[in-house]
């Protein structure tokens, strides 16, 4: 029953046609077939959030979603959202606040944070904590991540950009 089925989808703006086994998770498909190694594979049971990607504009768990379910969908990963600049402020802010150590959680954390900033622009520190509670970080203790996200919320509210850590000439 390893019969493959054809899917066509858009990944980071580019059309993709592929034959997949129905049991293949979206995150395995992205990593193994498309070599997009940004979304990480942590627990494979929906607990850790390392595999977070966007499907049709919403964050989802890449391990609790089949590649075949994404047939006809728009999929975005940290790679695409970095290129398009959507995450730029958050990424600079994460660097200012040292909001990562090993970096395993960062791609998922950035995508979750981006959805919070889009949907809850007035979120309090407490709401930030609640929102990212689905993304595990085993290094930072979360404070620096919350700091980084709050900095972006404050900057956005006053129409400011986060200053790049490394100034480009």
């Amino acid at each position, binding site marked *: *029953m*390893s*019969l493959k*089925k054809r899917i066509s989808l858009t990944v980071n703006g580019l059309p993709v046609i592929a034959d997949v*086994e*129905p*049991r293949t*998770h979206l995150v*395995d498909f992205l990593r193994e077939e498309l070599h997009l190694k940004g979304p990480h594979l942590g627990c*494979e*049971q*929906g607990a850790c*959030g390392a595999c*977070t990607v966007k499907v049709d504009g*919403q*964050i*989802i*768990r890449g*391990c*609790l*979603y*089949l590649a*075949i*379910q994404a*047939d006809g969908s728009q999929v975005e990963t940290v790679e695409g959202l970095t290129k398009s600049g959507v995450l730029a402020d958050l990424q600079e802010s994460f660097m200012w606040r040292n909001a990562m150590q090993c970096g395993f959680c960062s791609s998922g954390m950035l995508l*979750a944070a981006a*959805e*919070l900033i889009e949907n809850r622009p007035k979120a309090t520190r407490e709401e930030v*904590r*609640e*929102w990212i*509670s*689905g*993304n595990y970080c085993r290094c930072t203790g979360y404070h620096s991540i919350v700091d980084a996200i709050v900095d972006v919320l404050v900057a956005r509210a006053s129409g400011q950009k986060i200053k790049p850590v490394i100034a480009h000439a």
Partner: protein
Amino acid sequence: MKAAAFDYVKPKALPEALSLLAEAGEDARLIAGGQTLLATLNMRLSEPSILIDITDISELKGITLQGDHLRIGALVTHTEIEDSELIAKHAPLLKAAAPHIAHRAIRNLGTWGGSLAYGDPAAEWPACSLTLGAIMIIHGPAGERRISAQDFFIDLYTTSLEPDDILVATEIPIASSNQVFYFHELARRHGDYAVAGLAAVAKKQGNVLTDCAFTFFSVGATPVMAIQAQEIVNGQVVNQDLITKAVSAARSEIEAIADITNSAEAKQHLIGVLLERGLKHLVS
């Protein structure tokens, strides 16, 4: 872990989905949001031979106001409920409960109908549907039938759905202007399963509550209503004496079952804690 191999079909219409389900029998699983199913497949706790993806079926979608009730399609996601203005206005209990369900990435996919059909005693929607007197609209080989939430949840992960049935939607009476509600769950961390939870509504006039519905979840094999406590409170002035009586009734009428980390006694105690907080909140 990775799931065992299975086939996958995505019917466009309800009759097609029903006949696929009848054909495949118990070897098939319906998939909507898949936020519980995918985890059980990954852990190989379940190995169906075919998944029937029902997310293209339009009758199962959307939240609509129909006269004196709200129709919530089985495919409506937790996020849609959390963000819906119709829900905020006509079923505020559901809006209050939604953020307690897992995390946003999971709420973006997980569905109202999936949660009801799974019948997890620790889940929010079964308890809320019981409190709000929801009617389940079910389609099976013999056509449509309607079952009240009270008759729907039978036992642990067991509902009155037959293997060849599909839950299509739920009807919920809209909240009256004097309805007050309380939703709270006690959990170690945000997004975790509750140790114990309470979904309550009542009609409030001054310090008097009527039409009380108090449903506790994560304490037994199904969500369970505290019928005696409701009767004690109905039509009486809520004061400390009444709260004490109601708490004691709830603790004795509900037989709590221990889970892997919490004893039955702890849950029994928490039933009273939740009810006391809930009653104070409802009359505040």
